[in-house]
């Protein structure tokens, strides 16, 4: 036995000693790469890293087959996992990614959910019409539909003059920035919520769309009854063409996930949910960008511009811009 032990045919100890320095080097490179930007690594380092990664990976295979040192195998597994995710990780810079998002990913994602967008719009319209009919027949419905905080001084008891004042009054001019920011964050949060609820097979999202439309319908009914329909249109649409569009898209993103979970088609349910989730998430980031615009239009544009026709013109221009941006096909635009 002693004699056999003397002739080391292969020893895991020497195997380890030969490679330890490489592993330490790989660990050091990874530590620097993960700690900050890749720019901290020199060109040589970046060339060396995949080589070290592959040698660590082969060392892991050898160690699994020849060594019984569990700590060593666990160490190599951890090291290789980290290196793998670095070597095969995302390489594009933030700037490139943002560029690609605006020129390609966002419009493509919005196009891919066009069916759900139409459904969301129909649901909102249904809510609007239903609430309009209810409130114009019986104004007491107004308080049942609209939360009192949102209505403020606008209510069934208000006079036409008071209502007119709410459309043009700029008593909030002092706090415009705060107002715009509040509206933006609030709407964005509601949209994210509508999106996330899509997971429950889209049902709560659909309800949210109908309810959103109902709030709108109740307001329209109230103002139309007081002969202020045209004026309300300008007040609403200057930001609403962007905001309602964004909310419809958020609802569509949620519905997209919900319907793909119910009807996965040829894919497995998990795979379908994943694909839908990614498309919807891309659309959602766009929704938040749109709501930022809407918040600015609502906070500043609406308070500073009080001419009805100008309001309508801005609303139409915004709507046309969004539609062109999303739906006009462009050159070299393959749907992957």
């Amino acid at each position, binding site marked *: *036995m*002693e004699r*056999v032990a003397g002739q080391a*045919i*292969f020893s*895991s*100890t020497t195997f*380890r*000693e030969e490679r330890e320095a490489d*592993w330490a080097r790989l660990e050091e490179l990874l530590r620097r*790469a*993960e700690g900050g930007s890749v720019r901290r690594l020199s060109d040589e380092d970046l060339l060396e890293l995949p080589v070290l990664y592959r040698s660590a*990976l082969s060392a892991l295979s050898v160690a699994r087959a*020849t*060594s*019984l*040192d*569990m*700590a*060593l195998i*666990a*160490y190599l*597994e*951890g*090291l290789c*996992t*980290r290196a793998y*995710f670095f070597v*095969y*990780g*995302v390489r594009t810079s933030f700037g490139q*990614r943002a560029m690609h998002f605006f020129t390609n*990913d966002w419009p493509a994602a919005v196009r891919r959910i066009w069916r759900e967008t139409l459904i969301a719009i129909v649901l909102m319209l249904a809510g609007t019409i239903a609430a309009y009919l209810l409130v114009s027949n019986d104004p007491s419905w107004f308080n049942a539909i609209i*939360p009192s905080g949102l209505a403020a001084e606008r209510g069934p008891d208000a006079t036409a003059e008071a209502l007119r004042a709410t459309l043009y009054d700029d008593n909030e001019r*002092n*706090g415009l*920035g*705060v107002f715009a*920011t509040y509206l933006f*964050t609030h709407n*964005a*949060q509601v949209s*994210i*919520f509508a*999106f*996330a*609820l899509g*997971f*429950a097979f889209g049902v709560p999202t659909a309800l949210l769309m109908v309810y959103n439309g109902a709030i709108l319908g109740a307001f329209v009914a109230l103002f139309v009854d007081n002969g202020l329909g045209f004026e309300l249109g300008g007040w609403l649409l200057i930001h609403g063409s962007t905001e309602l569009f964004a909310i419809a898209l958020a609802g569509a993103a949620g519905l997209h*996930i919900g319907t793909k979970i119910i009807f996965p088609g040829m894919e497995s349910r*998990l795979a379908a*949910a*994943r694909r*839908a*989730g*990614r*498309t919807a*998430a*891309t659309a*959602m980031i766009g929704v938040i960008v749109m709501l930022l615009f809407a918040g600015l239009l609502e906070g500043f544009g609406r308070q500073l511009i009080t001419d009805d026709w100008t309001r309508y013109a801005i609303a139409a221009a915004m709507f046309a811009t969004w539609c062109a941006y999303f739906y006009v096909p462009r050159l070299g635009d393959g749907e992957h």
Partner: protein
Amino acid sequence: MASINPALPYGATERTLITPEGVDLRLKLATAGQRAGAFLIDFILLIVILTAFTIAVVSAGLGTVGSGSLAGLEIVAVIWLLGFFLLRNFYFIAFEIGRRSATLGKRAVGLRVVARDGGRLTADAVIARNLMREIEVFLPLSFLAGGEGVDGWIALIGLAWAGIFLFFPLFNRDRLRVGDIVAGTWVVHAPRRKLEIDLAGGNGEAAGAFAFTEDQLDAYGEYELQTLENVLRAGNAETEANVAATIRGKIGWEWREEEEDRAFLSAYYAALSTRLERRMLFGNRRRDKFDTGEDGSNA
């Protein structure tokens, strides 16, 4: 020998991830406890950051009040609203899009987010999984707070409904959150490890004092070897004494004066691992002490 191989613990939480080079990385899924712990750390951090941020913004606001202009106050309010919004929605996203694919809490626990297909973790996946937190965390929280203007029973039903999303990871094998399903991600436990010292090498002279016979080394297999490795790495004197006594009894080792338990165990470990590893090279594995190599699979 039936069932699992103790030398290769392919547990219920292990998943294969085969790299393009053809090596299985054997990712370990994070347990529900680890994930809850990581989330708790993040949540506490969020609250601490929010408190510090609010104090900073409010004190800046008080400063502008002194100067008597409202414009300053307005900017302060805008900063707070935007800061709160960004923190709530983008704290997780910003960290997980980064190179480590983990929030501070996940880093502390040794977790990271990976794409289930082993490909790159994309920004849209990270965004999808984190926007879903809205129904997993904030929805139950809002029902817990009593809901907005709904009465007790409705709030309770809502809470139960929201709880389905909160406890979703406990109901599936892969511990997937709702966000993970939608994003196609996994959370794996991949802590940074230090390379531990080699227990089998480096004590050549000391090993000379212990000469084990083949019979003595044949008493144990790989499973016992790894148990012994854990005992040695833990370095608890009492356990070592117990284990040393057991092994001495099993192999019929004569205890000599002044023989240290740890030295004995180290020497036995080195000798046993050398022997088992050599047998492995010849395709002859011995899983544990009951493995006689006679069932044909190891021949």
